[in-house]
């Protein structure tokens, strides 16, 4: 648990360093995640100690996000002046992208099936 936690913190520090040094618009934690994902793909296996630490932390995501999430109710006029337009954009945008995703994946899965069948016949 502690060993995995230390490694996650090391990747976080690397992410933070990269963000500061290259002044990237992505926060250090997301950079750290991308770097760790790349490292796992390169070495072709997961890490037991990091998996244990990560599953504990991920379990409490909602708790860790609550302080930021409560900020929604303290936005004042930013929210009261815009909520309807925001809601329209969210609802329409989500419906459009849901339909597009469903149709694309459906077409692609069928394409793959046809390709597999073609490859299977001599």
């Amino acid at each position, binding site marked *: 648990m502690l060993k995995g936690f230390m490694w996650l913190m090391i990747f976080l520090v690397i992410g933070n360093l990269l963000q500061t040094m290259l002044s990237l618009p992505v926060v250090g934690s997301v950079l750290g995640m991308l770097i760790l994902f790349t490292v796992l793909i390169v070495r072709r296996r997961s890490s037991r100690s990091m*998996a244990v630490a990560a599953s504990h932390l991920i379990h409490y995501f909602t708790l860790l*996000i609550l302080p930021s*999430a409560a900020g929604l109710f303290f936005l004042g006029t*930013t929210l009261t002046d815009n909520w309807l337009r925001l809601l329209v954009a969210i609802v329409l945008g*989500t419906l459009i992208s849901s339909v597009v995703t469903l149709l694309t994946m459906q077409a692609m899965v069928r394409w793959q099936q046809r390709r597999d069948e073609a490859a299977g016949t001599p």
Partner: protein
Amino acid sequence: MNLQALAHEMMATPALAVVITLAAYMLALSLHQLMRYPSWAPPMLTGSLMLAFFIVVLPINYDTYYLDAHWLTLLLGPATVGLAIPLYEQFQHIKRLLIPVTVSLVIGSITACAATLSIAWALGLSPAILASLAPKSLTTPIAIGVSEGLGGYPGLTAGIVTVTGILAASTIPPLAALLRCQDPRVIGLALGLNGHGLGTARGFGIDPQTGAFASLAMGLNGALSAIVLPLLAGWLNH
């Protein structure tokens, strides 16, 4: 000593901020269980409402509270880094469907962002609000990270992400039926890509394969958008 002065004294240490956050979280979990896990009222929504209520009645200044809650939010860093682990483990299972997943992922995540942003832009919303909206389909920790990087409001993003997740989780299964998509891999990918963690939870409620594809789509969309969105924003600002 009046209540306000007392609250002020209590805020001299982060203990009170941590206590009210934990209390709101645990109350939200109990409520969720009591209501038999409704997908339209996730603990994130009820918990943040309760937390806001505590902050208002105590009364504490939100900015002071947020600084003190750093004692907890600091752990969001290693937790976000840790998302790489389940993403890698899921990634092992889809090698056979690599092309369909990659193509759908790229088209889906571009649409999720572009459709919403163009509507919001046409409605005349400000750049900071557009920045808060851009990561709306991503899992909350990544979305907050991207929003902060783009100059959005993290609190607004958390709210937008929650609303998006509830919407996607409740509309995608009926939409799939309407469009005659029965393949669990198709429904799963759409749920995870558009509805992040809430969509993924809905997917696991349908069947394990739908859930597995949802959680993969959520992870890959988070990783992809975390790279693409800031680059795109930087390019648009030039």
